[in-house]
């Protein structure tokens, strides 16, 4: 399943890399951050903000994704014990709806 990265405008996440629950956050970050999304001048630029929590922090990892058109998706990765597959599924679902709407609009 591919993520429609061009529909994502912003990605915010907070996790501690020492927590095994944070694995989806790190992998999703590697999927989103690439030479097309990093430059500010790019058409498919994604504003990425990562907060690294301290090692013994009890705060569970979470991520917030903003799409084109203002839709926001908040995923509590740690609370729901999500895996990377679940994350990709949810993000892709929302992204594809937006993509379809945009292609219909013109």
């Amino acid at each position: 399943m591919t993520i429609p990265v061009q529909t994502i405008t912003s990605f915010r996440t907070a996790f501690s890399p020492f927590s095994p629950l944070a694995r989806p956050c790190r992998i999703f970050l590697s999927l989103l951050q690439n030479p097309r999304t990093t430059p500010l001048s790019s058409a498919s630029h994604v504003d990425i903000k990562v907060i690294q929590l301290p090692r013994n922090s009890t705060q569970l990892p979470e991520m917030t994704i903003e799409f084109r058109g203002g839709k926001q998706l908040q995923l509590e990765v740690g609370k729901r014990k999500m895996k990377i597959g679940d994350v990709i599924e949810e993000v892709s679902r929302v992204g594809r709806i937006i993509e379809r709407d945009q292609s219909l609009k013109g």
Partner: protein
Amino acid sequence: MAAIATSSIDTSTTAVLRHPPSQPPSHRRPEERRSQLLRQYTSLLRTAPLMVLFQHNNLQSVEWTAIRRELNQALRKADEQQVAEGRNLPPIASRIKLQIVQTGIFEVALRIVECFRPNGQTARLSGAVDPPKQSSAEIPDDTASLTHDLSRVVHDSIMNHKGKHELSTLLTGPLAIISFPHVSPEHLKASLSILSPKTTKFSAPTRKANPGYHDITVQEGLQKLMFLAARVDGEVFDIDGTKWIGSIEGGMDGLRVQLIAALQSMGSGIASALEGASKSLYLTLESRRSVLEAEEKDTPEKGEL
């Protein structure tokens, strides 16, 4: 050491070694890239006491080149500064490497280095046979006694240790490692000020001092690098620990000087505490004595008057 069958000797009674002595049998084929990488990573883990782990997200080769250029510049400056301070340390800028590692193979290498202990097993061949002598001695199958990194013994013993190391949760996703041949806080600080100035709060070079650093290639590449942790002498340090190590002034020598000073002051503190009781008693008695003498002087004078 090896007894190799030759055509001049009757082969039926000569002991035969089934593999060349320089190529012991391995669990995986040694010529494959993954086996070579495993050996490289075990060597790296054993010889580099300090290494910092980063996540790299789709950096381009141009960006890697640019980052390595800036890093080398900063490390050479750290070397020069050490020489200028007059400390007799070897220059290590050329031996510090920033490399991408294959995470899965690296995880196995970590398990081998940290978990496996040969328990006194040696890989020597027993009963070495002199080639010209004919004998019925058989060189025993020594596969079970071989404990090199690619051997079956090592593979079987670390197979069930997956995910048990402190560092194993960090070993997911794309990984890059910068390795130092010695634990050198100055070089660590120099490299972190280039690679992750925002997370470690070590100040990056200014635009005037180093305009090449603020080049768009370098900056975009650095945005895609994320600091994870550091491994120092087998211990895992997070961001705060790494900041502390980098901020040690004067390097390892400075740390030793600080330790000696702390021990000495602790010693003097104990001594003064022990002496303190008797000292205060002495001072009290002395002051009492002086007061009594003063009174005696007064009373005879009053008496005379």
